[in-house]
């Protein structure tokens, strides 16, 4: 798809009158729909099922005629037509990378990454070092942010997650200017630095942070700014693995401006109908993406729109904070945990008859406790044999003379859980039989912000 010469740039789009911008965005929307319909078989099929033709979709309002594409639908589609469920609009061998996110769900590296639509130019980051603590492995977060930072002229230190003490040393030695990651990980680093005897404000050069990926980051952002003088750039950034950046905060830090290279709707998750500003609903995105044009992708995240003008000069609507998930999955320390995943991890242990994962947030950090009920008479060996082994030969060691070795079991569950969910729980709690009612929710979010 060629870009027309007369097309306004992202900064221009962000500052024009809403009516004029709508005209441009709808034009691009029509183009991407026509393009996707032609190149991505799954799009054509979805349209046919809904009895709509690309020509029927002229305005954003018309999008309501197309059923939303939910993450679960996409997972099912990918299973049926691997690896991209019929949504890939370019030849496979032109892809630079393929990622996997929990689900499992595969994401091709798109052209529209985590950065396009940003109003900041390629010289914005010149002369500054940024530590990128998003994980570089498997999911698109780390590499996506890395690419964006480099395109803005920053020098990236690709540290990834974990190794807190080493992160402190790097931040100190290299006089790092900026941090990218979750607010709670930055807090962990600052705490560690202080524990190591540093005066964070004096001994470090950290000037800004781009933090996100967690709900409830506001108190921490306030702490970073007020106590440590770390400017939280853009307030929050909202992105998902499937469609990239959806909204970015500005220097006024009052909500997140929605991107100009996608159509973002807020809809009633039940009916798929669009909701107005001030109404809570699910964020639905149609990215202008030539590689992977997911039309009307339901993120599962709940938020609402503000359409009053912002003091920063941008006229784009803003999302308030992300208020929760429309489905059952919860986002913990920046990673989504689905009941499907926890089932997968726990099902390997016939010693466990019931479980419940409880998420709380005692002090600016998401905490996960896995409550488990043990099977009454140790293990049913026949059943155990049928389940794929989680730990190879050590599998049988948990039950000795009918008694489960809890420490060993916890270690093994911890490993299986991490393998599948990519985050780890803080502790396992053995509860008496009957504590977890039949049919109880497997993941309970008890966080209060």
């Amino acid at each position, binding site marked *: 798809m060629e870009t027309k010469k007369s097309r306004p740039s992202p900064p221009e789009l962000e500052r024009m009158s809403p009516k004029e911008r709508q005209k441009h965005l709808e034009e691009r929307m029509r183009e991407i729909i026509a393009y996707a319909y032609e190149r991505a078989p799954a799009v054509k099929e979805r349209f046919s099922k809904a009895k709509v033709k690309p020509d029927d979709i002229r305005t954003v309002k018309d999008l309501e005629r197309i059923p939303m594409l939910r993450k679960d639908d996409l997972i099912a589609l990918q299973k049926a037509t*691997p*690896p991209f469920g019929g949504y890939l609009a370019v030849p*496979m*061998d032109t*892809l*630079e*990378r*393929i*990622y*996997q996110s929990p689900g*499992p769900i*595969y994401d091709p590296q798109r052209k529209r990454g985590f950065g396009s639509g940003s109003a900041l130019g390629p010289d914005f980051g*010149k*002369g*500054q*070092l940024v530590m990128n603590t998003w*994980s*570089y*492995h*498997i999911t698109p977060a*780390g*590499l996506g942010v*890395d690419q964006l930072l*480099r395109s803005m002229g920053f*020098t*990236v*230190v*690709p*540290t*990834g*997650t*974990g*190794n807190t003490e*080493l992160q402190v*040393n*790097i931040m100190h*030695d*290299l*006089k790092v200017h900026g941090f990218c990651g979750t607010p709670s990980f930055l807090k962990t680093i600052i705490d560690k630095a202080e524990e190591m005897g540093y005066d964070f404000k004096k001994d470090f050069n950290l000037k800004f942070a781009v933090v996100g990926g967690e709900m409830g980051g506001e108190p921490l952002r306030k702490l970073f700014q007020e106590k440590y003088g770390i400017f939280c750039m853009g307030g929050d950034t909202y992105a998902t693995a499937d469609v990239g950046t959806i909204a970015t905060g500005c220097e006024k830090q009052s909500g997140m401006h929605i991107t100009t290279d996608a159509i973002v709707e807020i809809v009633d998750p039940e009916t798929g109908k669009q909701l107005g500003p001030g109404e809570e609903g699910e964020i639905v995105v149609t990215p202008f993406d030539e590689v992977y044009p997911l039309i009307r992708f339901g993120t599962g995240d709940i938020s609402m729109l503000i359409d009053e003008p912002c003091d920063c000069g941008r006229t784009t609507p803003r999302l308030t904070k992300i208020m929760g998930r429309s489905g059952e999955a919860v986002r913990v320390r920046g990673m989504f945990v689905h009941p499907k995943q926890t089932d997968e991890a726990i099902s390997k242990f016939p010693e466990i008859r019931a479980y419940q994962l409880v998420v709380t947030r005692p002090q600016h950090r998401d905490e996960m406790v896995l409550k488990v009920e043990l099977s009454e008479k140790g293990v049913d060996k026949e059943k155990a044999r049928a389940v*794929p*082994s989680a730990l*190879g030969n050590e599998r049988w060691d948990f039950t000795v003379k009918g008694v489960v070795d809890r420490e060993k079991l916890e270690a093994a569950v911890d490993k299986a859980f991490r*393998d*599948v969910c*990519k985050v780890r729980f803080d502790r396992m709690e053995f509860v008496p039989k009957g504590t977890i009612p039949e049919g109880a929710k497997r993941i309970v979010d008890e966080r209060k912000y």
Partner: protein
Amino acid sequence: MKAQKSLPPFEVMEKMSNKERGKLLDEQLKWLVAYACEKAPSTRARFDQAGISPSKVSGIKDLENLPLLRKDALVDLYKANPPLGGLVTVPITELERVYVSPGPIYDPHHSSETYWRRHVHLVNSVGFGKGDIVVNTWMYNLVPAGLMIDEALRRAGVTVIPTGVGNTELQVQVMHQLKATGFAGSTGFFMNIITKAEEMGLDIRKDFNLRLAVIGGEMGGGPIRKTVEEKYGIATGDMYGTADVGLIAFECSAKNGMHIAEGVILEMISYETGKQIEPGEVGEIVVTPIDETYPLIRFGTGDLAGLIGEPCSCGRTSPRITRLLGRVGDAVRTRGMFIHPRQLEPAMAKFSQVAQYQAVVTRPGTRDDLTLKVELKTEEGINKEQLADELNQVVSEALRIKVDRVEFVAKGVIPEWHKLIVDERVY
């Protein structure tokens, strides 16, 4: 300063005569030395200390008196001259990325054209290209390995799945579902994945689409590779490199040693004399990659390999080395001679009665004393006196110094994981 000339296409260079290639590389080196001495103060200091005038360098032969730059010296330089050791030719904020290796060494991300041409050519030569989907299991966080190989693969037209290390089960799933055609990572980790896949009930030949596994970086991977090829029908390849200089050698389809990549000047240096070795001998791999971002001149890898003299059947004329044979640091200088585990190993392999062994160097008076401790599999039916004589003779010959005594020890005296030669001298 004159601009750097571009090297001819590497497909052309790899077929050139050694003389022709040498001439081109010497020309590049001349430019690189001048450039590095101007932009990298620590390199300038190395030349000054060795009394070599950068402007008088016209080829690698002129650098024989420049002491090697080894890893521990590199660590010291990074400590003394933060943040980049005075070794990188651009300011830190002009780099795209800064990596962190143990030391700490803050490795720069390379932007040199020759560097990336070398990597693309190397990846293509090892057998990856457009249409391949490769699982890259080298670590992407902190160290340069993962992101460097990722970029090399992508530049070579490959679609990369950036899995990184760990999560074995997930790796199996991804490889299976995405029909990956290739694997890049360590030999040990590849075998973990294969084992896990079989445990999960998958048939590697039928359920996987793996064509080529480039597994390397480890010594003694030979038997494993044979298994991978024969049992699972997956071709294997090898690449060799270090965090500091990137990839520098690869195995071609002839699978008979590793070619030095184009764009790298190789010297094979004797750890005994410090001089260039002859083909057929074993020495340290010393490289000077043509790389203006991070010009490490005469970088001593510390890795030992043999230099192969015969031309390769693949048609490439580039220098060739054997698989890695050990580390320089493993050698113990005894009575003036370096003795190295790689000499001891083949000698001891001749004695099937031996379970464990260890050579111990002590210094009771003013003379180095060499004891060979031996643990037998069984003592039954063994004439110890005779065996001791045989061992003494064979090992003394292999080490080129006389073994003072052979000592039979009980089971457990030699720990399971041990150095083959241990230095217990106290001065």
